[in-house]
């Protein structure tokens, strides 16, 4: 795209751009940049400390909760004794199997309704 510019005005603009002293401008900008970096570093340290504190405080309750959940998932739905058949179908004959089936059913229903 060609642009017609007034040559006299163009000349004025070309000549008017001055050499501006770089200091203290550059120093000011970089001190602001350093301030931003310091603030970001402090923020990250604070987040890290909070996370460490949270993990420290919640580690034991979280571990207990995970253990309980794991034990609950392996409970058999129907008591088939201790035979080989019971061992083979134990993944399906458990709370975990029921939960998995429930989730699959929910997904199928969601797809049928919304797709």
């Amino acid at each position, binding site marked *: *795209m060609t642009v017609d*510019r007034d040559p006299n005005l163009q000349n*004025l603009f070309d000549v008017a751009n001055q050499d501006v002293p770089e200091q203290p*401008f550059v120093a000011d900008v970089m001190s602001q*940049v350093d301030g931003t970096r310091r603030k970001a570093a402090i923020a990250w340290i604070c987040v890290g400390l909070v996370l460490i504190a949270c993990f420290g405080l919640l580690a034991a309750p979280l571990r207990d909760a995970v253990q309980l959940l794991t034990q609950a998932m392996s409970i058999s739905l129907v008591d088939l004794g201790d035979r080989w058949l019971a061992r083979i179908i134990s993944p399906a004959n458990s709370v975990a199997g029921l939960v998995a089936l429930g989730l699959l059913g929910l997904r199928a229903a969601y797809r049928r309704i919304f797709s």
Partner: protein
Amino acid sequence: MPLQKDEYARSPEAILAGLARNGDRDAFAELVNRRQAWIRNLMRRCCNDAALADDLAQQVFMQAWKNIPQLQRVSRFGAWLKRTAINVWLQHLRKSDPLKNAEEVDDTRPAPQDSGGMAIDLDRALAALSEHVRLCIVLSYNEGMTHGEIADLTGMPLGTVKSHIRRGTQRLQEFLSAYDESPNGEQPS
């Protein structure tokens, strides 16, 4: 391994932009050093106030530092910085008095006389234009951008950009007619 100070000064801009994108402070300082005069002059043309122009230029570089991790093509650092500068200026316009951004040009302002220099006269003449007309004129004459590029950068319709530049050029020609005889920067008698 970090570069030495003089290596930064000798490095191409794209390399510096790449280093700054990865958080290299010294590379960014070198970029500021190289581009500060350009951005400050651009802002001076836009706002006719050296102190405000320097404040806005600082904001431009601070935004550049914040957003440089998102810079896709380091070879386009200059164009990206210019876009950042225009965005800072447009944000400043939005924050300031909206009546100042009216389309009408203030015809009551006197033409420059007894100027302290051509740059001052040019800035005074530019200050007599409305903000958006001035921005279009500055981008066209100071930055050498086409109408389409200006429309793309500022978000104004192409027809509006063309009319702004036509009207602004006429106004500047009236204000700065004394320089027609001495277009090389000599002060008019």
